[in-house]
């Protein structure tokens, strides 16, 4: 890894690692009477670890200029492996919290293992750890291939990847020791948020610089989506995390907004995180790996335009549908609801464009589990966007809100769409990157596909049932005009569904573990084929990479 860096890049990498370590030391000292001290220490160790890795490879020979005639794939490989590791961790904790809901004694009387702390570990682990790393890795791959240009320099992709994972580690470890700003999907505190801004702006600049070096007259659709993902997530992250630290020696901070404004900002963020992190980024993934795997042209370029601008424009307005029937003014709810309804057709256009692209390649969908992962992902994308627009309608929301239906909806999207498209992309990408003919075991890919599909279906059906039963139990009145069921009655009724949900999640987790094994064995298998796909090189004559970042 260090051997692919130039000497100047190695020096800058050492300097950056030292800066991170020093910042960690300062935080550890300032926060020694606060949980912040633990994080300061963690940052210190992380910085020193990076410095050690760079120092150990410091005197290895410099890469020759021949590298410039190839794409820079090392950070992509690392990103994919890290994403799979996060997948297993995040999904394991997911199964754990699902079990907790059915059998609360599984907290083992430990504060760190309580539901409130483990649940964000699960969400952050799968969304930011698994999803985020997969997005970063695939975006590095797609932007180079569709621009036919190598990334400018070798250091900034590593900075983005390694820096982003420091953020994820701070987030997840913070929840366990009780650090959170209590904003869903934006739990990390101020110092982690500032660090993510630095990392994310570097990511944006890297993406733009690669696009600027492109050897194609047009920018391919996948890049529109990746760019929207990077740009909007930066805006969302910054605005929703505007906060004032209670002290520089403590983890606690207070948001600048309060009351209903804070709620609205949070859900503007929350819903657009779904839109631009979990949708736009993964649509970018789909737009590259699905047509390459199917070997078919995109069904309609014009439809791509409608979907892209529809999604980017309408999603921005939809966040207030999370706050129906609350203190939020009625008119804001109306706007959130109507824009959610208008969002449906652009979303379905994307799903339709993907599925219709498969026309002429359905026999491949039948035979190839990797392509089938992506096909089913597009179906779940269509299902969950329909469900989302439906649930955003106020009277429907009156039944669904605060119930497990929401949880089922999220997982139809997160398991059925996000995770399946990612597994499809990873199974396409691993043989390409490691130059193998195919995955080590296509049968294991097939097994993973069925485990993932069965797990998702069991999960989603369990939550649909429990959510609707819950919603109905909460609103049923008896003849004497009082509530027919107590809250505990509804919990008792949920128990069998919670058991089923944990089982569905377990199947999904087992599939991911099988995927890890398959990827590992693919990498370890001898590169007998040692084949390089024809044309998998940047266009010669692309400007030489500048050494410094």
């Amino acid at each position, binding site marked *: 890894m260090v051997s692919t860096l130039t000497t100047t890049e190695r020096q800058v990498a050492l300097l950056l690692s030292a800066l991170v370590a020093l910042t960690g030391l300062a935080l550890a000292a300032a926060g020694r009477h606060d949980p912040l001290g633990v994080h300061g220490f963690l940052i210190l160790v992380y910085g020193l670890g990076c410095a050690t890795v760079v120092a150990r490879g410091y005197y290895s020979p410099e890469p020759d200029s021949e590298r410039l005639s190839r794409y820079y794939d090392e950070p992509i490989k690392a990103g994919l492996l890290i994403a799979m590791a996060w997948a297993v961790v995040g999904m394991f904790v997911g199964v754990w919290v699902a079990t907790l809901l059915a059998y609360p004694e599984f907290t083992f009387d430990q504060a760190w293992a309580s539901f409130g702390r483990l649940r964000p570990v699960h969400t952050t682990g799968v969304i930011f750890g698994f999803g985020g790393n997969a997005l970063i890795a695939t975006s590095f791959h797609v932007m180079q291939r569709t621009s036919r240009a190598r990334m400018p320099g070798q250091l900034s992709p590593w900075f983005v990847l390694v820096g982003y994972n420091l953020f994820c580690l701070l987030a997840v470890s913070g929840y366990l020791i009780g650090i959170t700003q209590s904003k869903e999907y934006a739990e990390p505190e101020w110092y982690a948020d500032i660090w993510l801004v630095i990392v994310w702006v570097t990511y944006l600049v890297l993406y733009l610089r690669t696009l600027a070096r492109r050897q194609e007259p047009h920018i391919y659709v996948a890049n529109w989506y990746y760019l929207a993902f990077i740009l909007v997530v930066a805006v969302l992250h910054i605005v929703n995390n505007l906060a004032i630290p209670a002290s520089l020696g403590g983890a606690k901070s207070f948001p600048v907004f309060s009351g209903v404004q804070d709620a609205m900002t949070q859900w503007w963020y929350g819903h657009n995180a779904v839109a631009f992190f979990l949708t736009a980024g993964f649509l970018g993934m789909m737009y590259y790996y699905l047509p390459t795997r199917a070997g078919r042209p995109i069904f*309609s*370029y014009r439809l791509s335009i*409608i979907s892209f601008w529809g999604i980017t424009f309408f999603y921005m307005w939809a966040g207030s549908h999370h706050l129906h029937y609350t203190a939020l003014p009625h008119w804001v709810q109306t706007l959130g609801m*109507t824009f959610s309804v208008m969002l449906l057709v652009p979303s379905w256009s994307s799903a339709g464009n993907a599925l219709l692209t498969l026309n*002429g390649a359905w026999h491949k969908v039948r035979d190839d589990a990797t392509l089938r992962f992506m096909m089913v992902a597009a179906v779940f994308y269509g299902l969950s966007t329909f469900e989302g627009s439906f649930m955003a309608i106020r009277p429907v929301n009156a039944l669904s809100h605060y119930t497990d239906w929401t949880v089922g909806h999220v997982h139809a999207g997160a398991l059925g769409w996000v995770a399946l498209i990612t597994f499809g992309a990873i199974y396409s990408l691993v043989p390409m990157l490691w130059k193998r003919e195919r995955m080590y075991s296509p049968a294991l890919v097939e097994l993973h596909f069925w485990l993932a599909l069965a797990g998702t279906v069991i999960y989603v059906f369990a939550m649909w049932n429990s959510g609707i039963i819950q919603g109905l139990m909460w609103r049923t009145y008896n003849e*004497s005009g*009082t509530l027919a069921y107590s809250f505990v009655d509804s919990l008792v009724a949920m128990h069998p569904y919670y058991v089923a949900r944990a089982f569905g999640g377990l199947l999904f987790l087992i599939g991911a573990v099988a995927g890890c094994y398959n990827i590992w064995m693919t990498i370890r298998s001898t590169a007998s084929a040692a084949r390089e796909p024809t044309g998998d090189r940047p266009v010669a004559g692309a400007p030489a990479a500048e050494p410094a970042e």
Partner: protein
Amino acid sequence: MAVEERDAHTGYLTTGHEWNGITELNRPVPKIIWLFLLSTFAFAFLWWVLMPAWPLGATYTRGLLGVDQRARLADDLAVAAARRADWMAEIEAKPVEAIRADPALMRLARESGRTLFADNCGVCHGATGGGGPGYPSLVDGAWLWGGDAKTVAETIRVGINSDHAESRVGQMLAFGRDGILERQAISDVVSFVRSLSDAPLAPAEKTGAAAGATIFADNCAACHGEDGRGSTDVGAPDLTDGSWIYGGDRPSIFASVDRGRQGEMPAWEARLTPVQRKLLTVYVLDLGAKQ
């Protein structure tokens, strides 16, 4: 660079661009997409006309239907209250004993009281009032502060050791922690207390119980009574009835004497209406009577 090619499968031309093997068909957007898109726009537009929708500086468009979520909630609450009005008025007017003697009214009280109890009291006392470690059972006939209707209603209103100004206050001293009794003395008095409820005693306990009797008379009888039957004036439990809040085994009683007890029950006056509290009183008395 831009060379359109015809896709053999569909017959459409590509846009003429190619990215690492990916091409796109230059196919018009299907008409049905436009149709659906315009339908959703029409729906949104209609909704904006009918409902509160767009901000206008300090105000907003009210919508032709004049719907307001706060007014609608108030209406819904009024409708629900009207459905309960007749029998709730009866609960409010009649004395508790008269309600309990009226089977029709009791059927309604049991139905509504069940959810009211489970949502507010069940967390500590259990959904069926059986209690749990640290929280008294309401169905065993053992009452800390008294089991008549007036007393139960008052306990619900002000709570025990709560933040209510008139809260019932009950405290068992920490005889060991605060150095009032030696360890041996505590051990002896625990043996004596266990003998009160005719618990089977080990031989060593029998000796201790004799010594414990004096210690009990000097230290415990003020609240729990000479005979250990407790006192509802200070919320001191009866130690002879075999009913235990914190457990009747030796280590539990030892812990109670050593570190004291000060159980808490919240006051419900600010949280539940008078008629809801009355309904709960009826329900709780009914729970106890069913045993």
